[in-house]
């Protein structure tokens, strides 16, 4: 994260804490009470030894056992309520953040975040949750502090010099051990990365297994995986060595510290300054106190993780919209529905283009980048400052239209058709009548998708329509666009996965659905069947219009055109 990102991380974190303050407050109180009770368990063991076991006093035993039972009751229910509330705060906040991110990621005006889809996805999937962990970190930190305070008081009550020694000694030991942590973190990060790479490689190779088999490359693939696996093993072992070293050092240092405390406390007990119970309590506390101190160290890491995630969340939530819609309503339908004048954008180098009412215009782009630039521009995904020339819809400059007016007038159906989880009907547009949908499906040559399945329009589609073939998806996308019946429709290569016979049907269908005023239609394609159905054809090359005319005229006169479309 850049330095500029940090204040945003802070504001996201503050907002998380503010929104959940009630839950957090109560949860912290309970968690503190839980940790205090945990700290008192060794003290209570000392009390039972001192008052009951050493004296053989039955009444004292019953009383001190009742005390232990009470302590456990407090301990257990404090955790029960504190942990539940804290967890609820984290979960609710992650949910909140996730929905907010989804809303921003799908902002109708687009998002100027510079993030790729994969990054956005990982931000909703993991960062939304991790940024909320600040709640857990806050709760745990408060509870650990309480445990420390309670232990400190108990120790100081027993013996001041001994208490001070423990209270200074434990944090020194714990923090000294944590100085080794960066080495450990670095190695375990390297390890996680190597393992993740290995897993990803396995998934990738097996997903492409048919491709590998097609060229007999399974052996090479297996050897590549074995090499990655061996590398991961090496990294893992190095990490395991330093983890082992850290563990051993922790064990030794804690033990040496315990030996010192036990020796000193034993000496004090011999001199009568401590009872046996107090000796037990001091030793127990000296062991226990390392836990909250270690927890505090861990909280620092947790805070750092949460903050880094909050920064990434902020990148989405605080990103500017890509385009700024205007305030003009849609113009009255005119004879020229769509007009581009001297448009320069991306590959486009001064393109002028008209689509009239009742007209189907074919567009052939020799260079696919010309078509892509045109589609991006007409989709309303280009800020006004990024292109030159004018795009007018019914005489109104496109950038001055409101969001609804713009989207309500021009519809672009992409070449790479995106379908969604749901039913066939929900993908085609749930608000249309059955008749309208059936007509659209027929025009798109997609009736087979309907007929092939007993559920008809209610047929379930999985995410991305993966249970349809590529050709079926393409035709459903076309049917969806035709059913929407927008004033101006832009289709990009709508029949590339469609067989020759069906392509002819689709050409007729598009003519029937779009061939009359007031509709205006632009079809970017090199399919002769579709181009023949168009009223006229515009040819783009090198970002410029190089030819115009009917398909037959162009095919007869222009050799380049013939080569491009008459396959």
């Amino acid at each position, binding site marked *: 994260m850049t330095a500029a990102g940090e204040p945003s991380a802070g504001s996201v974190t503050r907002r998380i804490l503010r929104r959940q303050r009630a839950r957090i407050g109560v949860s912290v109180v309970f968690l503190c009470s839980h940790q205090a009770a945990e700290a008192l368990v060794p003290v209570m*063991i000392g009390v*039972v*030894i001192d008052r009951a*076991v050493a004296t*053989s006093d039955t009444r004292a*035993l019953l009383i001190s056992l009742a005390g232990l039972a009470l302590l456990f009751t407090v301990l*257990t229910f404090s955790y*029960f309520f504190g*942990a539940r509330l804290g967890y609820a705060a984290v*979960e609710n906040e992650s*949910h909140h953040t*996730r929905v907010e991110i*989804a809303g921003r990621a799908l902002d109708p005006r687009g998002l100027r975040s510079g993030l790729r889809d994969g990054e956005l*996805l990982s931000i909703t999937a993991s960062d939304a949750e991790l940024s909320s962990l600040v709640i857990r970190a806050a709760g745990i930190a408060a509870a650990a502090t309480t445990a420390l305070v309670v232990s400190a008081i108990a120790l100081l009550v027993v013996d001041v010099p001994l208490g001070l020694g423990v209270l200074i000694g434990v944090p020194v030991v714990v923090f000294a051990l944590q100085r080794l942590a960066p080495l450990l973190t670095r190695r375990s990060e390297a*390890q996680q990365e190597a393992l993740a790479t290995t*897993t990803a*490689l396995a*998934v*990738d*190779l*097996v997903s*492409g*297994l*048919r*491709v*590998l*088999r*097609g*060229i*007999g490359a399974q052996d*090479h*693939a297996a050897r590549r*995986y074995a090499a990655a*696996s061996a590398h991961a093993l090496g990294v893992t072992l190095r990490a395991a060595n330093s*983890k082992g070293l850290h*563990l051993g050092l922790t*064990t030794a*240092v804690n*033990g040496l510290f315990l*030996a*010192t405390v*036990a020796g000193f406390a*034993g000496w004090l007990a*011999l001199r009568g300054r401590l009872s*046996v119970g107090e*000796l037990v309590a001091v*030793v127990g506390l000296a062991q226990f106190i390392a836990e909250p101190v270690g927890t505090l160290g861990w909280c620092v890491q947790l805070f750092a993780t949460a903050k880094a995630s909050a920064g990434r969340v902020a990148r989405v939530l605080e990103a500017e919209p890509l385009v700024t819609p205007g305030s003009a309503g849609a113009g009255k339908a005119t004879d020229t529905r769509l007009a581009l004048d001297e448009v320069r954008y991306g590959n486009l180098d001064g393109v002028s283009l008209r689509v009239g009412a009742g007209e189907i215009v074919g567009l052939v782009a020799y260079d696919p980048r010309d078509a892509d630039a045109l589609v991006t521009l007409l989709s309303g*995904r280009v800020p006004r400052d990024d292109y030159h020339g004018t795009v007018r819809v019914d005489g109104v400059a496109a950038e001055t239209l409101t969001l609804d007016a713009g989207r309500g007038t021009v519809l*672009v*159906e992409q070449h790479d058709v995106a379908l*969604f989880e749901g039913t066939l009907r929900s993908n085609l*547009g749930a608000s249309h009548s059955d008749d309208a949908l059936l007509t659209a499906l027929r025009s798109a040559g997609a009736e087979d998708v309907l007929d092939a399945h007993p559920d008809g329009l209610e047929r379930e589609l999985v*995410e991305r329509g993966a249970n349809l073939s*590529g050709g079926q998806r393409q035709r459903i996308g076309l049917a969806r666009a035709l059913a929407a019946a927008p004033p101006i429709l832009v289709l990009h290569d709508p029949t590339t996965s469609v067989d020759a016979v069906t392509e002819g049907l689709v050409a007729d269908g598009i003519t029937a659905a779009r061939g009359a005023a007031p509709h205006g239609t632009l079809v970017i394609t090199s*399919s*002769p*069947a*579709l*181009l023949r159905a168009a009223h006229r054809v515009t040819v783009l090359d090198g970002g410029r219009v190089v030819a115009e005319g009917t398909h037959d005229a162009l095919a007869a006169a222009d050799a380049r055109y013939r080569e*491009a479309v008459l396959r």
Partner: protein
Amino acid sequence: MSTNPHLLPTAGARQTWSELLAEFRRLPGLSAAAVALLVAASASGLVAPFVLGRLVDDVVAGAGTDRIVRWACVIGAAAVVAGVLTAAGAAVSARLGETVLARLRERVLDRALHLPSATLERAGTGDLVARAGDDVAVVTTAITGIGPLMLGAVLTIVLTAAGLFTLDWRLGLAGLIAAPAYVLALRWYLPQSTPYYAQERITTGERSQAMAGALHGAATVRAYGTEDVHVARIADRSAAARDLSLTVFGIFTRFGLRINRSEFIGLGSVLVAGFLLVRADAVTVGAATAAALYFHRLFNPIGLILMEFDAVMQAGASLARLVGVASLPAAAVPTNDLEVQDHEAALSVTVRRHHYEDGPTVLEDVTLTLAAGERVALVGASGAGKSTLAAIAAGIIAASDGEARLRGVPLNDLGEVRVRKEIALVSQEVHVFAGPLADDLRLARPDADDTEIEKALDRVGATGWLRALPDGLATHVGEGGHRLTAAQAQQLALARLILADPAVAVLDEATAEAGSAGARDLDRAAAAATEGRTTLIVAHRLIQAADADRILVLDHGRVVEQGTHAELLAAGGRYGHLWQSWNGGASS
């Protein structure tokens, strides 16, 4: 391409254990050292509470300062020894566990990649991907992450219990009173939580799916103005996942209550037993103290084991699935003793009849012979049997009744490895392998240098976009990297074909999904990649057929027309009609 999870084997508990033990036995020195070090480390950890008990006794008895100093020194020395043993034990056991794991995952992938075609076609890749990915990850996390902790916890518990019994058998029994309480807690928890955990994974998956789907189709969502619908669906899914998480955590906290109760029962009974034994003069106050401290020390390891119990069970289930795949027979060694000599027919296929499983007949009485260097195209409507015939010719599937021969030798006799070296299939399935572009292509020929790779890419017309890539051949492509278009991915597939350099190439609808402009480039690329090879091509676009030496028109599993492009056009049959309608009525 359906996936049936039952087609790949899963090992039983006994087989899983015996495979694991066999692996450990292959590393006898390391295994023995790991066990010895771990036991010794845990044992030396027990010295401190025991010595503390003696120290209490000496305090009660009013012994001299030197005794106290001596005990302190013993605790210190034990700590140093425990530290050294712990460090060594952790390192050695990791070496053992991780080596066994690495061997297992390598074997799983090797078997997965060499799955016989017939099995793969029936089982699909879904389950295989899950095993090579998820299951390996689950087992890895278990062994690398919680494995050492669990091992340490188990040893601490066993040795602490032994320590309790050494102090006094009655103190040991008192501690054991807690065991049924712990067991009951676990037996209450597991049946409650297990179904929820499975459900939680599903809802979390559905949540990411909704998000991924909406983001993937963001342009369409915006074009149709359906943002609200999608955000609402994501919110619903997210809320469902949250509610389920809260339910699961609720169960977990109630499990926590039961664990605390068990701790109290154990600690209380040890203290009561200590009280009674001290009063009866059977043990010292120090021994009673040591017993209580011992038991207090057990809280964390027992809690750890119980709370990680379902992770361990999951790892066990994943392990069984891995062992199942790992136990498949290794790929057969290529049989090189079969002489494949020059033969008039480079490839010949005779299918008397073919059907899938119990399905209808998809091919009937089809004979196809390709002379060396000949280029034959298959044309027909979808469902005519083109792809099936191509797959039989490539040796991917065996005909129910019929056979394919390479230069006169039946493919069955050659064996899969040999067949794959001679006949390559570029199928409809396109996959760009994640990583540097050069690595993707080197899968086809590992020893290819950059010049050869560039040459192959140039032949398929990819030089233009290769130059535009940020890091050239080193550019990361595929999942998580630079996204290639469908046409570019197809060009890669063809470049791989050039590098693999087989005598026979089978192309199945390789250009179907490309955009209009890209398709023309791909036709040229396909022609370049198959130059000089005997080629069978499934023609989705008729231009591919027009360029072929010979065309076979299939209909409902039978050959209905056969000849050159010109002959078939002149005959004015089915092919002629297809060509007319496809060309928008214009003559060529």
